[in-house]
């Protein structure tokens, strides 16, 4: 069997099996734990959701459960949280990490409702003490900027500055570890306690501004400002930014259809719905919408187990108006099998939309 055909899940299972056999040999188990971490972090685009032939369900609530751990769970919150409890030390975090990573990997490898593999990668790249070396795995802040600095970066620094609180450790460029902790915290949760630019409405607005880059006129509703200002939810924000880039690229590509975009948000009991309306635009080629490839497939993969996605828009066939369609890109019925998402459900409507409306649902 060639090396790249062995999945991360197989590797983790094999290492776990070896650890059970070697359980009485501490010298061996620590080496095995070290291998486990290295494998666990290697979750990238090539990693499959494993269990070939099995269906996995799109489940944003699972992502929330996963990300919440870093805010409220006593085993994980010290990676983002001031150490205000006795007994929390770097040594203890390092020692406990193999077991913690094994627990985290359950969210990806042993669940019917797995989190997005990129969400898992984002978190592991930051917390993993073994994510070292020049080609270490990256995590992304809420501006989409890649970072190499994580918990692995402060192990040696801590040894040299044993009395300095972890968050105050200073790197050679003058930045504090606290700066990175804040960046990470605000990449897994839309927060209201940090900078204005970390708030939901600013992250969305700044991303749209960056990707539309003046190509069309973008208007934000009063509700967007009012509701978006207070949104406080766990979310893999970089996945949302990736999705916004694809949507904005489409809008720019079809700007000839309409030069006006309206961004709105509404709140309901279980979450928020962000709407990006490209007035005057329209959809074509229902087959591509139903069984997407290319950018639409990328968009769905970006938001799998992060947010629901619906696109509704006026529909034309060979230039002729055919009412409108609603495309359910990701919803509670969406499944993934062998890394392929199930087809989108599409419904025809007689009423016109007035353009193409992208609807992203965030869960509380």
């Amino acid at each position, binding site marked *: 069997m060639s090396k790249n055909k062995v999945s991360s899940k197989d590797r983790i299972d094999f290492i776990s099996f070896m650890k059970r056999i070697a359980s009485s040999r501490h010298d061996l188990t620590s080496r095995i734990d070290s291998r486990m971490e290295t494998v666990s972090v290697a979750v990238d685009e090539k990693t499959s959701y494993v269990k070939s032939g099995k269906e996995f369900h799109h489940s944003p609530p699972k992502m929330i459960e996963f990300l919440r751990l870093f805010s*409220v769970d006593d085993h994980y*919150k010290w990676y983002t949280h001031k150490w205000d*409890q006795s007994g929390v030390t770097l040594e203890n975090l390092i020692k406990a990490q193999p077991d913690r990573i094994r627990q985290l990997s359950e969210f990806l490898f042993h669940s019917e409702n797995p989190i997005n593999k990129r969400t898992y990668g984002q978190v592991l790249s930051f917390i993993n003490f073994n994510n070292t070396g020049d080609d270490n795995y990256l995590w992304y802040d809420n501006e989409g900027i890649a970072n190499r600095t994580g918990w692995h970066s402060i192990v040696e620094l801590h040894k040299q500055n044993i009395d300095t609180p972890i968050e105050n450790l200073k790197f050679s460029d003058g930045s504090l570890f606290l700066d990175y902790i804040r960046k990470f915290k605000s990449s897994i949760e839309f927060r209201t*306690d940090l900078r*204005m630019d970390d708030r939901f409405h600013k992250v969305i607005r700044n991303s749209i501004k960056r990707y539309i880059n003046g190509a069309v006129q973008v208007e934000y509703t009063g509700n967007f*400002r009012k509701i978006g*200002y207070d949104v*406080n939810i766990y979310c893999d924000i970089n996945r949302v930014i990736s999705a916004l880039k694809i949507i904005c690229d489409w809008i720019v590509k079809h700007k000839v259809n309409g030069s006006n975009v309206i961004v709105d948000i509404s709140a309901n009991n279980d979450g928020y719905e962000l709407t990006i309306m490209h007035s005057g635009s329209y959809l074509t080629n229902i087959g591509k919408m139903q069984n997407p490839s290319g950018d639409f497939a990328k968009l769905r993969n970006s938001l799998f187990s992060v947010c629901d996605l619906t696109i509704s828009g006026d529909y034309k066939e060979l230039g002729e108006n055919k009412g409108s369609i609603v495309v359910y890109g990701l919803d509670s019925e969406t499944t993934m099998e062998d890394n392929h998402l199930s087809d989108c459900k599409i419904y025809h409507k007689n009423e016109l939309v007035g353009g193409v409306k992208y609807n992203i649902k965030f869960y509380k």
Partner: protein
Amino acid sequence: MIYIFEDRDSRKAQNQDVVKEHSDVICFAKFDIDTDQDLNDFIVENFCDADCLIFHKSYTFKDKNVNLSQIQSYMLRSGVKFCVYSGGIEHGSISQDGITLVNANVMYENLAHFINYYKDSNEVILEILLWGERYRLSQLISMQYELFNQYFMSNDLEAIIPSEDLDEILDDTFSKFEEYEFDASPILDKLKDRMYSLTWNEFFNMLSTGIHKIELTL
């Protein structure tokens, strides 16, 4: 009555004096709901006299089906003030729908003032928990810091504000004033009159003057 749901023994010990001193109006409590118990019934039976619940964000519930946001929604719907604290929360905030977040140390530092005000007026002012006794002044200073940090730390003060950014700046400034419940209209009216060729420095002066005028009223 005010209930604090603190599950950290060390923090409870550190702060028990102030709670004991005012035990007629405040106590440490547990949310020991059983798995088969109805949440509404449990709250009515145990906390029907609550004017305010103060919850540790990481509070561990015996019944895993119960979570903090359920209790928060229930209480806010019932008109009971609700505050969440954690060592991981950096700056306090109160959302328009009443969701209140505060840093754990800040909350305990301000607890005595908060209780005293409640005893004197029978009114729960969560702003005191977040910003202390002179909370309006602290809020104004916080707002000033946040706005100045947002606009003036990384911009060339002599440069003209790009016209395409003005709407967003107006929106964000208004949101910040609204968050702290200060009247933004005098500043925003002036800004709207000067929408074009406004430098960052002129904007800075407008904001400073406006904030100073508010300060004089506090």
